């Protein structure tokens, strides 16, 4: 039985994560007592300076790392339940796809490992490649792709299982203007279908244009979580992108490395 309240797709309850590094087990607090909820159908931005804990938050959500303490609920179930991952799409912050695969073969490989039925997969692969503008490159090896093309392919991979929850970690990295617009279209389309997106990004303009709710992390702590409008409400700038920057500046101050 799912144990999450219906409106929330993801919930972090007092989640902390401590990494132990080196021979002496030096403790690095990546997340400290983070509590937040991601409402269904929202585009939820996660921002913060470098080493704020954004990627750790995503990895903990996807069971790539385990929280040291606290509880994470994903699609109504405890995150330890891996079966819910078949309804999640994930775009990793940096790609290392096997260069020997073609774009179509890569999607077939990851689609099969998401247990998408073969017939359905054969139907979806050309659709997704079309969606990210790589239909004419389907039979080309990934080794010949540019960084932006690899990123678009990663987006196609994340969308392949038609996910209820789409997690994008720095998705615009290496993307040109056209690809960025394409990403925006994908996210808006996903939201229009009533599905949820978590967007981790350093690009404030992307966050401003796409997100309706934002969490700001700083030094592993949650500095803010709420509607984007609330965050920029106190800012003095005229346009909202600058207003977001104005709002975040005090939170970033002294934290970036």
């Amino acid at each position, binding site marked *: 039985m799912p144990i999450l309240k219906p409106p929330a797709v993801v919930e972090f309850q007092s989640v902390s994560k401590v*990494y132990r590094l080196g021979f002496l087990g030096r403790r690095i607090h990546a997340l400290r007592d983070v509590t937040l909820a991601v409402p269904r159908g929202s585009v939820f931005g996660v921002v913060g300076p470098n080493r704020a804990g954004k990627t750790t938050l995503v*990895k903990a959500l*996807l*069971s*790539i*790392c*385990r929280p040291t303490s606290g509880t994470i609920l994903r699609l109504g179930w405890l995150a330890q339940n*891996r*079966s*819910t*991952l*078949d309804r*999640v799409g*994930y775009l*990793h912050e*940096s*790609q*290392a*796809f*096997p*260069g*020997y*695969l073609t774009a179509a*073969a890569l999607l077939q*490989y*990851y689609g*099969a*490992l*998401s*247990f998408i039925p073969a017939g359905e997969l054969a139907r979806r692969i050309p659709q997704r490649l079309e969606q990210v503008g790589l239909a004419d490159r389907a039979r080309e090896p990934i080794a010949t792709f540019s960084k932006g093309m690899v990123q678009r392919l990663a987006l196609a*991979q994340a969308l392949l299982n038609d996910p209820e929850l789409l*997690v994008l970690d720095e998705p615009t990295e290496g993307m040109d203007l056209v690809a960025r617009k394409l990403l925006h279209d994908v996210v808006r389309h996903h939201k229009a279908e009533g599905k949820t997106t978590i967007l981790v990004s350093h690009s404030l303009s992307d966050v401003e244009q796409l997100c309706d709710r934002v969490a700001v992390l700083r030094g592993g702590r949650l500095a803010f979580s709420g509607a984007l409008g609330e965050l920029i409400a106190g800012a003095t700038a005229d346009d909202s992108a600058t207003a977001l920057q104005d709002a975040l500046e005090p939170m970033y101050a002294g934290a970036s490395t």
Partner: protein
Amino acid sequence: MTLSKFVTTTAWLVRDTFRQSLASGLCWLLLGLSTICILVCCSAGASGRGSIILPGEHNGNFLPRFDREAHDAQKLKQSGTIVADGTLSLAFGAIRVPLARDAREAVHFVQLVLSAGVADTLGLLLTLVWTAGFLPGFLDRRAIAVLLAKPIPRGALLMGKYIGVLAFVLVQASYFVVGTWLALALRTGIWDASYLLSVPLLLLHFAIFFSVSLLLAVCTRSTVVSVFGSIAFWGICWAINYGRHSVMAAAAMAPEGSFSPGLVRLANLGYWLFPKPVDLGRFVFDSLGAESNFRPLFQNLPSVSMGLSIFTSLLFTGYVLFAASRHFRRVEY
């Protein structure tokens, strides 16, 4: 995870391993080396009286060419004993080796060199070196993250990759053994299938030591550590295995009470705990009746139970795979 999902996962990881081996050239390299061996076997031939003594026809009146009694011509003539006088040729007759025994033994000798020397030692070490890079690449932080976000238990991912590499080695070993066997059989007319037993034994041998490579890859994600660690471990196990048999042989021959029982116990402990590469090689020797070709190697060595030796080696492998899987489940990415 259901069985069908595990099978799907494994099948795709096997497929990916073959693609990886094709892309890296390793597949073609190994097939090329095997093809060279097959071509060498295609150029082999056996002629003379030795070659006409086929399995089942061997009689007590046959004498190896180099047997001391074979020089007593008068005595041989009286008894009607046949002395091997054929030749084993290689490179389509360019290299001619006098047959020491009958043609069957000569073919067995070639098969032993191919199985124990080329495949089980050189091939095993090269394959361990070349396939060791598959795992750290697979476990790369960036590459594995996307797979870890799939609804597959980590243990199934790791075992799928392990099985993938084993499947690759099985194909390579089968091509090598069946190819050389067919070539030799077609050229010499000796269709002794015992050589084919080398395929499962080669696979077993590789599976044992690749499990160590897997554990090292999971713990360190370093190709260098995986390669040198697994090869060093193979060497240690070989020494423990051969050392134990030597100790047991020496203890059996020593006067009663003159041999340290502590040393025997220690040798036995190491022998039963660790994999047994010498025993695995010996089973190939036994299946081909190699004692006649390599008598000094086996003189005084105690007999070993094939079943028990394989079982304990597999037990060790199972434990290593369990440890690798357990560590992989806990490791942070």
